[in-house]
């Protein structure tokens, strides 16, 4: 198992947000997590990535058989966990290229590989730029500063392409993109897809699933996954909204 989350409960500022969540991701799988605003999707992604604002109060998260919650944020990243942020952070004064090079070298060092110098990295990153159809000028600019919403999302996918994570959590990377940008971003996600990698796609809209075909679709409300199914579930959600699932749930209870 690549990622195994069992009965996960987490809170922020003493308010419970995740309320007993289960999710298993095998290598090679793509999981979509859908759900209304405020249901805890971003919290789930951030807890897996190790955001300090959230306290795990019970349950477990294991990654490749090891306790992920024991690792610091940076250790998780170097072990191959990647979070594409719903709201990427601006870092004035740090160039995009040097930021990605340092991240990439941290990962390489962990794997016992030699660091790349700026010139070597430049060759490497320019190849990845093509995947997201970004202008090389973005390499010299400060990280995410004065990027449009769509450029920030592409930049997240660029970082993912550079770092080649084993587990990618994409938090609404498709929101706010026009159709061309959506195709590019989806292409970036598909190029990561492989037998040994897992992808968790948090999304609000069924649209991206036309481009990135999921193996599983989960519905999350109020801190829990309340229904799981195949990709047809996403289409049903698109048609019928979320309420029928909640009703189904209550009927069963």
């Amino acid at each position, binding site marked *: 198992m690549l990622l195994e989350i069992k009965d996960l409960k987490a809170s922020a500022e003493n308010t419970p947000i995740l309320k007993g969540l289960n999710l298993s991701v095998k290598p090679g799988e793509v999981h979509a997590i859908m759900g209304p605003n405020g249901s805890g999707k971003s919290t789930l992604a951030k807890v897996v*990535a*190790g*955001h*300090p*604002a959230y306290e795990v109060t019970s349950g477990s998260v294991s990654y490749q058989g090891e306790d992920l919650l024991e690792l*610091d*944020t*940076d250790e*998780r*990243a*170097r072990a191959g966990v*990647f*979070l594409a*942020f719903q709201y*990427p*952070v601006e*870092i*004035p*004064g*740090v160039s995009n290229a040097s*930021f*990605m090079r*340092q*991240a990439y070298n*941290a*990962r390489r060092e*962990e794997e016992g590989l030699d660091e790349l110098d700026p010139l070597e990295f430049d060759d490497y990153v320019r190849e990845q730029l093509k995947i997201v159809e970004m202008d090389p000028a973005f390499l010299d600019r*400060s990280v995410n500063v004065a990027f449009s919403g769509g450029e920030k999302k592409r930049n997240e996918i660029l*970082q993912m392409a550079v*770092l080649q994570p084993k587990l990618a959590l994409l938090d609404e990377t498709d929101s706010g993109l026009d159709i061309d940008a959506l195709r590019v971003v989806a292409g970036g996600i598909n190029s990561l897809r492989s037998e040994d990698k897992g992808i968790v796609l948090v999304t609000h809209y069924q649209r991206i699933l036309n481009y990135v075909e999921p193996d599983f679709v989960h519905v999350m409300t109020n801190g829990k996954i309340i229904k799981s199914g195949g990709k047809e579930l996403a289409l049903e959600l698109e048609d019928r909204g979320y309420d029928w699932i909640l009703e189904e749930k209550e009927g069963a209870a």
Partner: protein
Amino acid sequence: MSSTFVQQFIEQGGARSTDRLPTWWKEFRSSALKKLETLEVPTRKDEEWKFLKLKTLAKTSFVAESDAALSLSREEIAARLLPESSASTLVFLNGRFSSELSRVDELPEDVVLTNWQGLLDQDPGLVRDYVGANDFWKDDLFYNLNGANFEDGAVVLIPRNTVLEKPLHILYVGSGKEGSYASHPRNIIVAGENAEATVVEEYDGRDSGAYFHNVVNEISVGANATVKHFKVQRDSTDAFHIARNLITVSQDACYDATAINLGASVSRNDSYARFEGQNIDCTLDGLVHIRGSQTSDTHTALDHAQPNSRSFQLHKVIVDEGAHSIFNGKILVRKDAQKTSSNQLNQNLLLSNKAHIDTKPQLEILADDVICSHGATVGQLSEDQFFYLMSRGIEREHARALLTYAFAAEVLETITVDSLRNALEAEVLAATVG
């Protein structure tokens, strides 16, 4: 009767030889000595000294620089020499000029790059008009301590229409290990009409032990001339550093300064720029990066007396551990200085909750048709930025260094001497890694 602190400098000043001095210099010294009899160490009641504690300085007794002679080889200072200035460097060791370590070669005709004692062999009259010409600090204790005691320093005279391609480097190396000395460097920089020059003024401390650099700079930028002035203060953390920068700028001229303050236990770096003409550009940027129990205080005044000039100031401060930084920046726009444009920003980064900031940007505007803005911010490194960097595999300590460096970068980038800028960038990065 003044305090023992002041008294020691009255005695030292009175004992200095006047044998080789021209009359005007003797008179300048004796009037400063007389003035000192009426001056006291400022206390916190004095508005200009409200936040800077001078107690340890006032309790320390200092010997004259001749009683703490320092000798260093070229190898020992090699790391501080700038390759760009290989033929234009003046070196002072514990305040005394070192002709062995200095290099002055191949300068354009009529350029003077020498020290005061060297000037006495040539024509001391060359600087007479510039000494004391800008008397903004005439009642200031430290200005007068310098006036009563200065014996050496750099003299830089660039004739009209002369462009210096290579930066001039004035390097003061200080060490308290030969004794706690006080030195009063006085640097004169004069750029004639249409002249251009870049000057690096640097104070570099080594070893432990107190010493005191009490600097006065008198800078005159002629019509349509351009002077870039980079000051780097990394005196030892036992040392005291006080500097008064007097800047007089003529019409159509440009003076751009960046002051980097990293060292000293207590430092004060004050600048006063007087605009004596129209269409002047003047920039006073600064970076203070201190830690431990260091205190650093910067007071600046940009004095717009005539119309149509511009001034700009970006002063960034990083305080770590128990350090304390003070900034007071005044923009003065006098009644006739219409169409003045002035922009001032002070940004402070607190890296520890024991660190302390006092900041006071001040506008004093008497003209009505001007564009002036000023502001100050105090902040910490953002947890969101930490999380973003760490989520990409960058360790917390490294993220801290990167973010701190990013904060400082905007000021460091103003330094146009490549080797100096690169060295400072590396230093700021290294200083933030815990």
